[in-house]
């Protein structure tokens, strides 16, 4: 599975390194949010959110049962949109 695209010129090597770094940064930001809404607001930080009432319970309950799912959706679409732009920026998008 080693095709022609793997044999790159030096400046391409540099570009693909930068591209990968940009990707890792996007992934890291997204995963911080991913963990914050589910493990954070939904579970570990729920006591801190218990003062915010919502529909007979508190915000932590809402994050655990609905909010985190909505944020997950937003995250995936944001990442897809953003990375497809980054692909073009670095000139590594598919032909």
């Amino acid at each position, binding site marked *: 599975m*080693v095709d022609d695209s793997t044999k790159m010129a030096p400046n391409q090597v540099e570009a693909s390194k930068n591209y990968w770094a940009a990707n890792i940064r996007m992934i890291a930001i997204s*995963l911080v949010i991913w963990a914050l809404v589910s493990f954070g607001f939904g579970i570990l930080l729920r006591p801190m959110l218990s003062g915010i009432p919502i529909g007979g319970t508190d915000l932590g309950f809402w994050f655990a*049962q609905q909010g985190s799912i909505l944020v997950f959706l937003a995250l*995936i679409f944001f990442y897809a949109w953003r990375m497809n732009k980054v692909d073009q920026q670095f000139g590594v998008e598919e032909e």
Partner: protein
Amino acid sequence: MDQFTINLIFVAASFALYIGIAIWSRAGSTSEFYAANRGVHPVTNGMATAADWMSAASFISMAGLIAFTGYDNSSFLMGWTGGYVLLALLLAPYLRKFGKFTVSEFIGDRFYSQTARIVAVVCLIVASTTYVIGQMTGVGVAFGRFLEVSNVTGLLVGACVVFAYAVFGGMKGVTYTQVAQYCVLITAYTIPAVFISLQLTGNPIPALGLFGEHTNSGEPLLTKLDAIVTDLGFKEYTLHHADTFNMFLFTLSLMIGTAGLPHVIMRFFTVPRVSDARWSAGWTLVFIALLYLTAPAVGAMARLNITEMMWPNGTQNEAVSVEMIDTDQRYDWMKTWQKTGLLDWEDKNEDGRIQYYNDKSEAMQARAEAAGWQGNELTKFNRDILVLANPEIANLPGWVIGLVAAGGLAAALSTAAGLLLAISSAVSHDLIKGAIKPDISEAGELMSARIAMAAAILVATYLGLNPPGFAAQTVALAFGLAAASIFPALMMGIFSTRINNTGAVAGMLAGLTVTLIYIFLHKGWLFIPNTASFSDSDPLLGTVKSTSFGAIGAAINFAVAYAVSSMTKDTPEEIKQLVESVRVPRGAGSAVADH
């Protein structure tokens, strides 16, 4: 027309629809079978993937587990959706770029090792077989109710249908059949929920009704629910009672497991482009979220309805009378479900009433003594019946009940059949042809596929008779196994160039073995009842239940792979280049079969 006939019509009509579409869009060859979703729009692919993935666990079992536990079981909701974030960010685009068809092919190539490929196949078979056991539990419940026979008879009939369905083969891999299955499944799940949400809160959207106002009492629905369940000695529905560490681990295991399930990952190998792999994961989650945002509402509202049925005059007054259960047609669902053996009641104190309460609560014991109760009289309420019984409990029209029966069967059968196909092709193609006997004839390969499928279904049926848990719990064990074995190998394969063949093999073996042993210690060796040394109420490692161990298994996998790799020879240059090429979208051709 009686309910049995209505159910039969709905089930038969939905099956006719799937078979009709399968024949109409029949793929002729193996490569067409694999490539069926190439050139399919990401939205359509997402819908098909959602149908493929949502099984008896999501449809039949999950809302019931939430209903009887409340907040503590939110792990299922977060875990089974959060995994798609990992899939979309960490795996899907790179595996699409790699351009083969199966997970074991990627692991075999990336770790340049036939052993790695075989170990991956073994991990896949173990996780998938456990998954099928959970499906068979759901199939037994659905068929038992639908045919109005005992759970055991339902399971045996269901096993035959699943086997025929899988051998027939037309249901899997044809995207449009799965789109139809998704439509049936989501309609069947949503319609009763909308009806019930309207009845209870006046809000037609169940997800909003959950946080809305209970029309009869004027209080918020969840406040009302908390009040009536605590009146009967049960724990508050909305509060956190479970061990926090275990809940954290369980949620994480389900997330990692979702991103490590071969039959889900496979769907992203064949989308047209790398950018489509990213979108496709998003669309899949949209269609899954439609069910997952409704499920907590279904659970809470059903719990409220059931409790009010058992206490028609309020929880502080007399319980429902045996006479009422026998004569009032609103209680007919109890008698139909009693036939399956999954629901039962007994008038222990012979006062002509059925008291449903938590007889382990001290406050209730005082009240029970004063009132002359002799323990909870709703003696059996299997969690897995809740979703299927829900429309009957809410007294919805017969056609809604028929629709839910069709939806439950669609969910259970499509996933069970899909998994059996995955197991049989792993055994015949990857294991026997790929490793043990490369010169096997095509007829021999086909024969071994059939034998593997038959063996898997026999094992799953036998263990489905005495399942290690409710459908969703058994499926959660399968996710733990996938989390501990497949996911770390894939992630390290993409994000590290340093992990080598020996490291990956050692990591997968360590993760799988330790997790499997931990599960067997708690659920019985090979899930055979009465061979367990520990139980999940008092687990070996403090509070870590066997369903939550997958995350620890994954950590072991990562650690072992890293340690072993750093002590052994670095990866060859061409593998480093392979990893580099997987990381950039440019140059992604279409997927090619490794035949």
